[in-house]
Structure formats: structure tokens, C-alpha cells
């Protein structure tokens, strides 16, 4: 049944593209609202009729996975949710994959956010992934959350030397000194790995500049696609690896699935998002080609005239 729907919608898209191609051969530009409509149909139809593709992890993602995999049990890992609902579909899968991986490896998890709008998303990850999937995890002993603080780099500049000065209490109002996870932790330098997830400022770049570099803490950022190219220069010295966009997240999810049987039923939003992604990419590529045909046609017609 789904196959029929899928072929049908692909058919419509292809016929539509051909019609535009014919139009563009006359050297005319199409209204951009038609392009908008195409994008809508493409993404909607490929969502409706599920498509999934296998993912092979690239080296840069594998390095992050191996780092978490090979850290000794009980290592301290800090995850920072530096994003808002607008970036959520892209980076939330990474955050959840990191949480799962850290918990299954029995690392100690420290969760925080530099974005006011990240607070609710941080909670969502704790409530919907961490607690139900790892019911044995004890708050304060296996994981803790510091919540949001305003100030961005100002916050980072303080926690690089002293957590308690910035956070008198955790998110629930418990003083840090009463939380076992903070018993031996003074500053962000005591972390074994930091996983900043985000795509704006303050975000992964600030973590590298203000915590990773001065404190020599390994950083493995999970990035929205828009900033990923920007973070490449920091790899591999200042960032041990990175996850870029949904594809990075999908590769990480597939690594988790491959290595841990217990995750075989987990939801894999990034992997399932790769279907619509692929279709949309193909349509965009088609539009680039059509655009160039129009351009050369137009130029030829002007030359002849």
C-alpha cells in the first residue's frame, strides 16, 4: 500500500519537474512559490510513505563514538543543550543518542544549558529518554542537571575555574555540595569529555574557545549543519571529532544500533529523517540543473537577438 503511494508521489514530482524543465527551455524563470510548493510536496510525501536508508559512519563521527565507548566506566561527561526548539529536529537526536550511550557505558552525566529555550528540551531528554530507558539511574549519583544560566561566555568563563560560584544549586534547588556527583568536581576542567550540542552562539565554538582550549578538556560537539563547516578547522586538535547535522546523528544512531542489542527498539528520529532529506536533496539538485539550463538558454537567446 505504502509503495503505491510512494511511487505515485514520486511520479507527480517527476512530472512536475519535467513540466518546469520544458518551461525553462524557453529561457523563462519560474515563480518561486512553485518551488516552495515542490519542497512541501516532496518532504510531506516522503514523510507519509516512510523511506529508510542504511548509514555507514564516517571517521569523524566514529571518533566521537569510540571516545565515549573507550572511556573507563564512571568517567565524567558533560552535555550542554545549547539549542532551541527551532534547531530541535536536527540536534535533539544527537543529544538523545549521547545520553543513551553515556548511560549504557555507566558514565556520570552532567547536564546543563546556556540557552533559556534549551531548558525545556533538556528536561524532555531526561524525562523521555533517560528516566524511562534507564530506570536504575539515580539522580545525583549517575546524572545531574544544572539547568539554565544566562550570560553565555560569562558562564563558561566562571565554570572553567569554579562550578559552585556559578551554580549555587542544581536545577531543583539542591545545593551542589549535597550532590554526590559534585563531591570531587571543582570546575569544568574535571570533566573527562564535554559534548556541547547546538548551532548558535553561545554554543560549541564558545565551548572550544572558553573551556576546551584553556582547560584542555576533550570536546566532541554535536552541531547543527549550518555551523558544522565552521567547526572543522578545530578538528582534530581542538575538537576530537564532531557530528554534523541529521546525517551525523543518523550515523551515530546506526553505530548505537550496531553495537548494543538493547537499543534495537529505540526510536531513531535521525535515521528516519534521512528519507525526506534524500528526496529533498534530489529535488534541490534538480532545481539547480533546471536553473542552469534556463540561464544558458537565456544567454543564448540574448546572443542571437
Amino acid at each position: 500500500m505504502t509503495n503505491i503511494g510512494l511511487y505515485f508521489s514520486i511520479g507527480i514530482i517527476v512530472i512536475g519537474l519535467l513540466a518546469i524543465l520544458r518551461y525553462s527551455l524557453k529561457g523563462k524563470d519560474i515563480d518561486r512559490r512553485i518551488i516552495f510548493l515542490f519542497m512541501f510536496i516532496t518532504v510531506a510525501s516522503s514523510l507519509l510513505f516512510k523511506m529508510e536508508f542504511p548509514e555507514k559512519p564516517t571517521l569523524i563521527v566514529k571518533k566521537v563514538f569510540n571516545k565515549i565507548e573507550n572511556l573507563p566506566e564512571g568517567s565524567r561527561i558533560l552535555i550542554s543543550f545549547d539549542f532551541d526548539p527551532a534547531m530541535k529536529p536536527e540536534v535533539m537526536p544527537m543529544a538523545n543518542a549521547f545520553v543513551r550511550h553515556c548511560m549504557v557505558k555507566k558514565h556520570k552525566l552532567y547536564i546543563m544549558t546556556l540557552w533559556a529555550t534549551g531548558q525545556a528540551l533538556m528536561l524532555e531528554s531526561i524525562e523521555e529518554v533517560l528516566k524511562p530507558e534507564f530506570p536504575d539511574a539515580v539522580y545525583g549519583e549517575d546524572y545531574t542537571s544544572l539547568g539554565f544560566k544566562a550570560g553565555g561566555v560569562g558562564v563558561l568563563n566562571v565554570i572553567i575555574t569554579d562550578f559552585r560560584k556559578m551554580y549555587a544549586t542544581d536545577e531543583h534547588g539542591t545545593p551542589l555540595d549535597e550532590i554526590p556527583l559534585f563531591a570531587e568536581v571543582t570546575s569544568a576542567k574535571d570533566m573527562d569529555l564535554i559534548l556541547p550540542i547546538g548551532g548558535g552562539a553561545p554554543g560549541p565554538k564558545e565551548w572550544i574557545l572558553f573551556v576546551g582550549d584553556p582547560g584542555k578538556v576533550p570536546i566532541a560537539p554535536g552541531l547543527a549543519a549550518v555551523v558544522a563547516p565552521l567547526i572543522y578547522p578545530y578538528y582534530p586538535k581542538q575538537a576530537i571529532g564532531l557530528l554534523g547535522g541529521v546525517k551525523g546523528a543518523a550515523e551515530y544512531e546506526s553505530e548505537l544500533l550496531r553495537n548494543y542489542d538493547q537499543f534495537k527498539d529505540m526510536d531513531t528520529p535521525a535515521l528516519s529523517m534521512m528519507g525526506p532529506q534524500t528526496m529533498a536533496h534530489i529535488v534541490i539538485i534538480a532545481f539547480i540543473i533546471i536553473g542552469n539550463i534556463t540561464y544558458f538558454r537565456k544567454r543564448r537567446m540574448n546572443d542571437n537577438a
Partner: protein
Amino acid sequence: MRKAPIIITAVVAALFVLSWLLKSNGAVVDENSMSAISQGFWITLSAFLTLAVMSFLYQDNPFYKFAEHLYVGVSAAYWMCMGFWTTLVGNLVPRLSEGLSNWFEVPYVGFKPHFIIPLVFGFLLLMRLSPKGGWISRWSLAFIVGTTAGLNLPRFLSSDFISQISATFMPLLVNWQGIGSFFSDFSLSASGQFIGILSNLVVFLGVFCGIIYFFFSKEHKGAFGVASRFGIWILMITFGASFGYTVMGRISLLVGRLTFIMGDWLGLIS
């Protein structure tokens, strides 16, 4: 012609109510969550707002304007509240007043008199709202500017300058094993020397020529011009690559929204 907007508004309102009713009917209720009616309302509102924003793609219209103005008001207040509770109550109150700390149930750190400074600067900043006292808010602005400058100067010098230079120090020849193996393996793996050497060479030349392109004291002629030409090509590859890479991110945002509309709201996908 004046009738059209009224009809459209009426139709949208009717659809809104219909969706509210339908969603309230099917809502899952447990003891912790809100009532079915309010659940139905909120999910309908979310869907309405999503569609209102998307309608901008066709053209500007009153629904979009409504959504936009709502967003502006709500988000400004949201940031204020978050800042108030986390930073003012969380970091300032415990250093100034024991009574207030107990009232807000935050652990009192002890009286730190110098924390009156940010309080004063904060109020000075608000003076900008008054027509006459605007000039004094510059003191706070100066504090913000000074902090940014002081934080940025050493960090950018260290991470974006010195570390970036030393990251470019790469041996151009990686484990050379003779010309035969050099030309026999064009793979990306660690054993592929050709690509390893090519990558190092491209990074070196790219950084070198890119910096030459951004060199403003000399006219770009002769050898300098050639290098700067190559520099702009490398930059163009960079921009093309970034653009291509970003497309993925933008689409996932759309996927996220459509999943909500078609799944959570219309129930077409599970």
C-alpha cells in the same frame, strides 16, 4: 470585496473549533496531565500557529502578522523570566540578602558587598528607557563592551589565531613508502598516501593563499595575484561546501514541523 477577509476569518475560526473538538475527544488523559479539552486546545493552537507562519510563503497576511506579534511578546517575556529566576535569584540574591534567599529558597552564600556593583549597573542600563537619563546607561553598556573585549582578546588570540597556526604545521610527506605505492592507492583510508599528502598540501596552500587574499596592504599583481586567485577559489569551494552542508539542516527543520502537522495533529503518520 470587503467580505472576503471576513469569510476567510470565519472559515479559519470554524476549522479551529472543529479541530479543538476532535482533538479533545481523542486526547489521552492521565491524572498528571491537563484536561482533554485544554489538550485539544493547545495542540490546535500549535497547529494554527504553524500554518499561520507558513502562509507567509504565499504572501504577507493578517494570520502571519498575528503569529509574528504573538511571538514577539511571548518570547521577550520568556527570556526576562528565565533571566530573573536563574541569574538574579540564583546568583545575585544569595550574595546580597539572607532574608530574600530564604524567601526564594536558594542557599545563602554570605554577604558579598561588591555584588552591589552589577545591581547598580543593571539599573543604570534600564535608565535608557527614560527620555532624559539615556546617557547614564552608557556606563552599563561600557561594562558589557569591556567584558566582551576582555574575554575575547586572549581567547580568540589563543584559539582562533595561535592554535590555528600550529594546527597547520603538518609534515607534507606522510609515511613515504616509495613511488609505487604512492600511485597505487587513491583511497581515503589511512593507507592511501596520495590522498593524505594531497590533503595536507591543499590545507597548506589553501590557508596560505586564503590569507594572501585577505592581505590588504599590497596590490594583487604578479605572483601575489596568482596566489590570491587560488585563495578565492578555495574560499568559493568553502562557501559552496557550507551551502550544500547547510541545506540538510534547513530541511530537517521542515521535516520536524511537518511531522508535527501530519503526525501529532492530523494523525496521518504514527
